């Protein structure tokens, strides 16, 4: 009996002590940075902007106090455009550098190689630039396993739609074009793209005369352009990402009289002008944003800050990577934790106005689970053209700054 109060006291004391320790440790946790691993092709035109843009976003968030007092730390890994290097980097990022989330790569083959690792290591993973439909299809087909992967860029199917929507207004309605040849590199991302092209081009009234797929190792494009010219199309619809400089320069040097229109990932980076000695003049390409294009109020300030810091405007994957850091931070805030499963749930609920439009992800029941939604009011993409050494938006009307124009060697058939 005598001992009772003292036991109660001791217990109360112990509880208080335990509480204090827990409070202290959660305070330490709160001060712990949110670590984002960025695995990218630092040596490629399209990939180089990824780590730079991610760092820029992190610096901005940190300057504004971070996420609930936690700083964002970017840990970069150069993957040399190799899947094997990327897998090693992913393992290292998770196991040794203890990252909470990974942002990786613009190459579909690389992302498809990383997807199972995101599942095995239970680490949320977002790609800023790969396009293959398979990335989000596998999330749909085995959700429980693959739910850690998010596709932060348009699928090839959506890209084809975006190109066709632009082509309808610019080429069919305005320039009365009737025929096209598809020219695409042989890679994972172009298979669904080509299927999409075939389907939607004929729907908008462009007859597909021929379809040329070539090896990404191709250096001499003369025979390819020759074959295309033989088919006499009004336009070449492109699907190129691994190549870009060489076909563009040879198109100009050989004065191929047919315009190029479509996906040309390398053309999205401002350095493309110098890399091609301005042969890019007249090239029309699809983008999610571009310099001086106010897709949202955030687009232009981001592009300008990027240029101020790194000397050139970002590639398409720079815009997406920048947005990704922001909506990951937003998801961490909403989840109140960096726990992988909670973060996945929070990311699924993303509704973020970024530089490329309004980012939301398709749900469990949509065929492209965890891919960003395509459509009006969300993300539609735009068409840009290299004009006078600069990238200018030409479509859709609300962001277009200029009309399309071509170098003198282009002969429009109508």
């Amino acid at each position: 009996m005598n001992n009772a109060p003292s036991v109660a006291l001791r217990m109360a004391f112990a509880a208080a002590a335990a509480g204090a320790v827990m409070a202290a440790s959660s305070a330490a946790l709160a001060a712990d940075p949110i670590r984002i691993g960025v695995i990218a092709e630092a040596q490629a035109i399209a990939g180089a902007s990824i780590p730079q843009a991610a760092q820029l976003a992190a610096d901005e968030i940190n300057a504004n106090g971070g996420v609930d007092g936690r700083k964002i730390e970017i840990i970069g890994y150069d993957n040399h455009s190799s899947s094997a290097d990327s897998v090693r980097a992913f393992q290292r990022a998770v196991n040794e550098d203890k990252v909470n989330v990974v942002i990786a790569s613009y190459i579909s083959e690389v992302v498809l190689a990383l997807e199972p690792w995101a599942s095995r290591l239970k680490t949320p993973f977002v790609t800023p630039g790969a396009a293959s439909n398979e990335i989000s299809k596998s999330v749909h087909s085995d959700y429980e396993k693959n739910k850690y992967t998010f596709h932060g860029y348009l699928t090839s199917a959506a890209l084809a739609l975006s190109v066709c929507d632009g082509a309808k207004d610019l080429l069919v309605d305005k320039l009365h074009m009737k025929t096209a040849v598809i020219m695409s590199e042989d890679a994972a991302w172009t298979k669904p793209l080509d299927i999409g092209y075939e389907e939607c081009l004929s729907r908008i009234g462009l007859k597909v005369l021929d379809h040329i797929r070539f090896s990404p190792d191709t250096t001499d494009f003369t025979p390819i352009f020759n074959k295309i010219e033989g088919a006499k199309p009004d336009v070449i619809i492109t699907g190129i990402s691994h190549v870009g400089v060489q076909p563009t320069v040879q198109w100009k040097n050989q004065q191929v009289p047919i315009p190029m229109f479509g996906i040309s990932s390398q053309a999205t980076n401002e350095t493309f002008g110098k890399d091609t000695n301005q042969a890019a003049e007249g090239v029309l390409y699809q983008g999610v944003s571009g310099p001086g294009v106010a897709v949202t109020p955030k687009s232009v300030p981001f592009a300008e800050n990027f240029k101020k810091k790194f000397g050139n405007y970002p590639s398409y994957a720079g815009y997406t990577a920048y947005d990704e850091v922001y909506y990951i931070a937003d998801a961490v805030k909403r989840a109140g934790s960096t726990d992988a499963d909670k973060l996945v749930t929070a990311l699924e609920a993303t509704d973020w106005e970024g530089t490329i439009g309004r980012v939301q992800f398709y749900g469990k029941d949509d065929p492209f689970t965890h891919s960003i939604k395509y459509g009006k009011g969300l993300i539609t993409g735009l068409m840009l053209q290299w004009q006078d050494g600069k990238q200018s938006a030409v479509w859709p009307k609300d962001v277009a700054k200029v009309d399309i124009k071509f170098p003198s060697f282009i002969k429009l058939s109508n």
Partner: protein
Amino acid sequence: MRAFQILIDGFAISALYALGATGFTLIFGVSGVLNLSHGAIMVAAAVAAWAAASIFNVGTYAGALIGVAVALVAAFATYFAVVKPIQDSRRIPNEEKEIFVLTGTLLWGIMIQEVIAYFFTNNAKTVLPIVEGVVEILGVRTPKNEIFTAIVCCLVIALLWLLVNRTRTGKAVLAASMNPRGVTLLGLELTNIYVVVWAIYGILAGIAGVLLGMFLGVSSYSVGPLTASAFSIVVLGGLGSVSGSLIAAFVVGYLETLTAYLVSPAYRTIPALLLLVFVMYIRPQGLLGRR
């Protein structure tokens, strides 16, 4: 129409191959060195020419000259930093030196490739053509630069022929390729001859690299394929035989062009490689090989 197209395109690419392979075979003929950093030196020349013209705005001609100069420096670096130390080493047995040189130059080439990728990205670069525009030849729209490339290649090869056959230094080089011991006995310093050969090699590889950069463009990924193509042309022609390499360059160039036009651009290099295997079976010394 298509026949003319193949004829014209094939000629330009073959002439370029010939120029690239000549220096490669010359070095082997004279000093027994198979320089596997060949592709890297060509790419270094092209990227230097691109950087000089596009980043530092020195102009097209100066850029091209800088490209060739970089190849010359790279060739000397290859010789003095990689090849010569191996040849002079007492710790490497003589019979193993060849394999050491192969490995050494291969690694050296990879080092150059990585440096280029690090500073200039691994995307392709194209050198601004010296002559722009197109002309119609036999109904084929041909870039003037393609004609320029073919003419320069032929001129340089002709100059090389004159140098080797008509000058004292050239004759010494020729003699060294036939009988190195004999040359030393005549009182000529073999090392000096090697330096001359590496200088000629550097200039040839530099011109070939810059022209390739103008014609098709190069990236750090081109290093391996360029070395491989020079290697297979030289093996096909007969190791060390300059005229054999010239013939082989045209055989490979036209075979590739024919395949690209008549079959598919994707299979471009396959028939030439099959031919190489076939020649190895029936005539291991190559078309004009001496041994």
